């Protein structure tokens, strides 16, 4: 299976990559290629220029920036999953990266690529939403920051413009988080049928703030706002968790496919919200 021919460029700097992207009509950024290459082989996307950002120095770093950690565009799933900073300050993201696909895909695919691709069932976007992360987008026009809550628009659609590269994601420190997933093949090694990420700030016993994000259930990974509100101000009792779980799909259209009906997915969303909250409040 070959894609149609294209021009390949592998810029040595971000500026070069941004100019190449701005200058081409129908260009695509290639990071890990784990979603782009299958789509090109199936000829669902046909870029005329492919801009490989993997040779740009410095994009593969995870750094401690004081009140947040910064994950560069070329940080691969395997690195996100095992990095000590991510495990300490963004546990849900480390768990979501570890639960993404299989070893070979985690060795190639990138955390930022997964976020930019925005599959409706992608793992790491849910963690990014629950953690209240910020996307850093660069173009020849400059750099802007986009809160996760405003980033995901619809299936495979984000607020990134076609001339922008997602150069990093910034995850604020503080609170505790977990990611819990039911994979399509029983184990983790494929997209989730349903999964939930939960973040709570419960430093003084009561939950002062919480965010819950769900993926695999609707047309995009989403923040379950009313569910999160149900535990804020409580001490995380089983009643509060049950109330949150029962509102997991409030306000969203639940989708069905060969892996699950609407009823089954609605049920799973509650179950996984409950499990994520129980875990994070332990």
């Amino acid at each position, binding site marked *: 299976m070959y894609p149609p021919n*294209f021009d390949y460029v*592998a810029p040595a700097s971000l500026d070069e990559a941004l100019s190449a992207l701005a200058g081409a009509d129908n260009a695509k950024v290639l990071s890990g290629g784990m979603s782009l*290459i299958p789509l090109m082989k*199936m000829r669902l996307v046909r870029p005329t220029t*492919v801009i490989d950002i993997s040779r740009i120095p410095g994009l593969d770093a995870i750094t401690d920036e004081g009140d947040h950690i910064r994950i560069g565009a070329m940080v691969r799933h395997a690195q996100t999953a095992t990095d000590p900073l991510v495990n300490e300050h963004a546990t849900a993201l480390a768990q979501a990266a570890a639960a993404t696909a*299989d*070893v*070979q895909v985690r060795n190639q695919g990138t955390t930022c690529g997964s976020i930019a691709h925005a599959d409706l069932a992608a793992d790491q976007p849910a963690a990014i939403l629950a953690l209240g992360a910020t996307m850093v987008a660069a173009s020849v026009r400059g750099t802007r920051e986009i809160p996760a809550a405003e980033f995901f628009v619809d299936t495979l659609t984000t607020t990134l413009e076609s001339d922008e590269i997602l150069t990093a994601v910034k995850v604020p420190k503080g609170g505790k988080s977990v990611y819990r997933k039911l994979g399509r093949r029983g184990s983790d*090694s494929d997209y989730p049928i349903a999964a939930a990420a939960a973040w709570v700030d419960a430093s003084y016993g009561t939950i002062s703030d919480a965010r819950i994000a769900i993926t695999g259930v609707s047309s995009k990974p989403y923040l379950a706002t009313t569910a999160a509100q149900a535990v804020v101000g409580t001490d995380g009792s089983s009643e509060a968790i049950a109330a949150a779980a029962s509102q997991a799909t409030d306000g969203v259209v639940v989708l069905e496919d060969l892996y699950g009906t609407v009823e089954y997915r609605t049920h799973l969303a509650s179950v996984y919200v409950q499990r994520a909250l129980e875990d994070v409040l332990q």
Partner: protein
Amino acid sequence: MEVSISVNGTNHSSDVEPRTLLVHYLREDLGLTGTHVGCETGYCGACTVIVDGRAVKSCTMFAVQADGAEVRTVEGAANDAGLHPVQEGFWECHGLQCGYCTPGMIMSSIALLEENDNPSEDEIRHGIEGNLCRCTGYHNIVRSVQYASAKLRGEEPQGASAEVTT
């Protein structure tokens, strides 16, 4: 496009189209047909090779992405002294039936053992999650990796009769 790729220790400079997948470069340009093509969509792992120390699926990587890299394929697993311990394990423990998945299984297992020479059964099963086998039911593949793990650590490997608990 000019690429320079080291494959099993030999440098190759070749002119490839950007759309040439690494697996086709290995099989068709270099004649190394040990790396198999299965699903072509990134799911089955039959095409697994090791690029700069990491197992990857060569059907989902362009040859141009491997420019300057060191690639290892199943052809490079054995040396003059004989089979690689992983290959020996598959031989001794009947880790294959039709053999279609085997080159990929072997390369994934080699990468796994290079990272962790004493994996638990669970870690082995997770480590080969990206490789599908339609014949063996995986039990003997797990035994084969356990055999290789023991051998690599200088212990007495157990044959096909070793206990697998699940």
